[in-house]
């Protein structure tokens, strides 16, 4: 869209003042959004075990900074276990959620799909139902089928929480999908599975990958369900370990973890953005 809010040369002083005031207001809001991220990164290099900037840090003295909290993180067994658990649970639940969610999105986008709105509503509901209710329900259910204190239980719960994101992103990709293409594939004699893997999947891949990333982040960041179903540190994930870090033994190690997690989110955000641009280019937008 063309730019509209540049200041014309004939603007009145009032308009001029408002123009700059508006930009200052927006700047403050952006600062509010980004400040938590900006503050936590330098503090994670703090040489002292406090959550504030020391005078040395403000004067940029080298000895006021250190990597001790990172070292602490990477040598602590509890944290290492939690990384391992987070990765295992994250990857398994992402694979499951992506498979189930992509199939469902393909079904939903078919013209003859019965009860589309109702089913879509049900499939999206894990995203809408407050996490505490989901966690409570899963906790009771798992206690009755001996799934508490197992990574399998976490995988299943996180899969359920991740599927709405896959369904939404893949459905969005399928909106601009040319239905003549799979038909052409079928007419050339390809069986449905070949049509899917050779024609449909390459075209919807950006949506599938985006959905998979969302599902992974959902699992990687989820803590409420873990709080209820994982009772021993053996099954803790990174967020669960952070939760203990905030609640019980306040140590700046969690700031180091937080900084590393910010790095992960930058990586994921960049990937999603590249995918979005690619799919826009493919669709000629």
């Amino acid at each position, binding site marked *: 869209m063309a730019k509209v*809010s540049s200041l014309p040369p004939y603007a009145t002083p009032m308009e001029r003042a408002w123009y700059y005031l508006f930009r200052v207001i927006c700047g403050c809001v952006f600062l509010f959004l980004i400040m938590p991220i900006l503050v936590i990164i330098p503090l994670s290099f703090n040489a002292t075990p406090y959550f504030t900037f020391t005078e040395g840090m403000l004067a940029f003295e080298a000895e006021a900074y250190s990597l001790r909290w990172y070292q602490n993180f990477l040598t602590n067994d509890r944290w290492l276990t939690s990384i391992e658990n987070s990765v295992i649970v994250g990857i398994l639940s992402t694979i499951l959620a992506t498979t189930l969610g992509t*199939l469902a999105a393909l079904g939903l986008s078919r013209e*003859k799909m019965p009860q589309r709105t109702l089913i879509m*509503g049900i*499939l999206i509901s894990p995203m809408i139902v*407050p996490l505490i209710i989901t966690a409570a329900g899963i906790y009771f*259910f798992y206690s009755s089928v001996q799934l508490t204190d197992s990574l399998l239980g976490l995988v299943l719960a996180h899969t359920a929480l991740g599927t709405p994101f896959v369904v939404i992103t893949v459905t969005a990709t399928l909106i601009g999908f040319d239905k003549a293409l799979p038909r052409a594939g079928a007419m050339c004699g390809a069986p449905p599975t070949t049509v899917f893997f050779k024609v449909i999947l390459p075209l919807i891949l950006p949506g599938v990958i985006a959905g998979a990333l969302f599902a992974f982040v959902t699992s990687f960041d989820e*803590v409420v369900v873990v709080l209820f179903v994982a009772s021993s540190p053996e099954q803790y994930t990174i967020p669960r370990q952070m939760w203990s870090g905030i609640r019980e033994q306040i140590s700046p190690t969690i700031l180091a973890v937080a900084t590393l997690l910010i790095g992960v*989110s930058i990586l994921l*955000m960049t990937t999603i953005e590249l995918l979005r641009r690619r799919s826009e280019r493919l669709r000629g937008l």
Partner: protein
Amino acid sequence: MAQIAIGDAGKPERLTTADGTPLKQALGRVEFRAKTRAFLLVAPLLVFLSITFLFPIGQMLFRSLHDPLVSGVLPNTLATLEDWSAEDGLPPEEAFAALAQELALARENRFSGDLGRVATRLNYEKPGIRSAVTRTARSAARMEAPFKEAMIEADADWGKLESWATIQRLGNVYNAVQYLAAVDRRYNEFGDIVMQAEQRQIYVQLFGRTLWMSLLVTSMALLLGFPISYLLATQPTRVSNVLMILVLLPFWTSLLVRTTSWIVLLQSEGVLNDILVWIGLVGDNDRIQMIYNQTGTVIAMTQILLPFMVLPLFSVMKTISPSHMRAAQSLGAPRFQAFWKVYAPQTLPGVGAGCLLVFILAIGYYITPALVGGQDGQMISNFIAFHMQSSLNWGLAAALGGILLAGVLALYWLYNKLVGVERLTLG
């Protein structure tokens, strides 16, 4: 292939396919097959969610209405109370005898833990009855007729109509007692619904506070989100892409990371207070308490949920043509009037979508209030967690959850009506 069957009289009769089946029937069959195929693709996820998500939640909510504990431990007592009501005065002698016997029995099987659970369950309804149950159970085996006098002697609570009415009511396997408790109400001994005792009235206020805080967060998010969405939508793509990172990065950053960061920023020895002291706005000894209260929760939640407001607003504003504003201004409208009368109304779908989304997410929030809420920043989710994990009053947790869920589903329904779940986009 469809062909027209020509009847004897030479006029077209009905459409059939090559093998003679009526076209309508063949079409129906094809449609049915297409529907089945579409449904089969969705089925695996539907089955998976039913087992791992819908069923557990349903089962949990069932707990708020289904309570077989008391009827399992005191079946004979309940049988003797069948025709009794508080208007008749104290129950008959058999009821006292049966209760004494069953309490003694429950104490004998003390490893089952039933006695303690029944005592606790009754105590939620009638505070103080726990000691009556446990004390009587201890001496019940040695009691002799007349049981009425013996039991009242053991504990005066057995001489009160309310104790018996409580046992009778909780003897119903299905009851709505927990829902009444969740809205600060209870039955009295005559079966009328009355308010809880003053010091036990907390949940209506809690629901009110949850609604108030969610509304506050939603309106703050709208107030902050609207101008930046407008800026993002009206800047050239190159600029808006860069600015968009400032919205998307927090969106993608872990919730716990952002909450931790707010603790670092807002605590009394924290960064913000340090800055204020350094500027000289506040003294070193009267630093502002910005965290572990409602203020902290609202600030942190606003920042965390702000991207959910900006993204739908931005996507709607991007589609509004700037020529509308220009047209209004060229017709003589001042800039503000043009904005208010022409531009703003067109953003309403985005405002609605953003507000509903933020409100739905805020009302069920757990993590942030739990970490930075302190005493008066707690929301309904935190009390559900408390009753699940600490007080172990699962029925009440389920009832509170049921009310919260009903509210969220109503909002979700509204969102679906106004916006449509299909149009929910991410990033």
